[in-house]
């Protein structure tokens, strides 16, 4: 599995359009399945998360593994899991 350090896109990840761009970038640059590493990411917005997390999960059996998410990021990821029906495995 490839691990992507999301902090390469910034420490604050918000905005639907930006989420779409990041997902396209992930598709272009990495081979799925992916593990998303949130080390150094301070905040994630729902709209950004909606455009990245479920879409990455959809490419790999609706499951996604998450590393190093702080408490606030975890809360957002849990909401995304609830809304989209994917399985988010947070380590």
């Amino acid at each position, binding site marked *: 599995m490839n691990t992507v350090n999301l902090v390469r896109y*910034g*420490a*604050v*990840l*918000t*905005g*639907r*359009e*930006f989420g779409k761009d990041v997902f396209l970038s992930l598709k272009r640059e990495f081979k799925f399945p992916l593990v998303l590493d949130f080390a150094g990411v*301070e*905040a*994630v*917005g*729902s*709209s*950004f998360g*909606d455009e990245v997390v479920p879409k990455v999960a959809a490419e790999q059996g609706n499951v996604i593994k998450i590393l190093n998410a*702080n*408490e*606030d990021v975890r*809360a*957002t990821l849990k*909401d995304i899991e609830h*809304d989209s029906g994917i399985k988010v495995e947070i380590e």
Partner: protein
Amino acid sequence: MEKKLLSITEAASLLGVSRITFNKIRKEKAFTEVPVGQRVRFYRDEIMATLQPNNQSVAPAGSTKRNIILNVFSHDTIGDIEFKKDTFDLTALKQIDPYGAVSLLCVILEKVRSGSRVHLIVDEGLVCQTLKAHQFFLQVEARCEGKVSWDKKILYGSTFHDNTMLMPITAVTNKGTERSLAEELVVLLRKQGFHDSVGRGIAQIIGELADNAMTHSAQALGDRICWVSAQRFLYREKNCVIVGLADPGLGIFSTLKTKAEYKALTDSQALLKAFRPFVTSWEAARGKGLTDVLGIALGNNSYMHADVCNLSLQMDFHDGSNPEIKFGTPLADVTGTRFGLILIDNYFVKKSREEVDKMLEEKERQI
């Protein structure tokens, strides 16, 4: 109480005239001249009394309320400093926070957009110095193309530094800029000893609200723009951060009511509903940002105002067991949306969407 004295320059500025014109007026009106050293000064009240308001909805000249406060906790409004049509007396302000400053900016910009020329009365007092340090006048100059006047000599060369300022009023015109600003703020708040959850909460709030604001201003004006500012302050012996964020778009309830299923709502119903999850003018999967912002404010037991046109949704969550939501008078009655939000320095956890929704559902029933 000692009467306030003005120099010729200050008095001329108050009347919105040049020094030469003021010298003619002072003879005609026979203003009392108070010698101070080798110069003369004039009583401010006497100068104010000569101003005849041409808008009956504003207070009569001479009775302008002093010590006006424009912040999240105030009952005053920007109308209280417009003692004459299109003339704002900034010297009447005792206090202003980022929410007040961005609201004032929106009022001035709307007047200029509608073809008015605006005059600002300034002095060397703390509020005007603070507004200058927060780049308020720079934003006015940048957006108003010479249609707003004030006596620039009064504040020229001021070296006043406000050490409570975290982010001066900043115009965000490109999506992405708000994320950089939020990142800087997270670092700054951490350096100043704020708990991580405060910086992260503020970052998410700015990211979500600025993204919304730029989308909505683009729909209304064709330009993406919003203004953000942040300041540190002490409230009830606790360190707090206040954020002001404004956009000149259609406003939350007007945007929501463009969707057929919300068209029949009153403005206040629509404003409240916009904070519920999955309520959006877009497709159904959206509409989470405002709920998340409210979840942060609720989790932090803080305060939030959302002003749209003549409505102000005012939320006071300081008593965690009894959140208060009410409609009040906005600081500014102009189009667009202005947010004033406070986060108090402590460890906190954002409330879930379900908790926010339950609270709003109860409030909707009351309305």
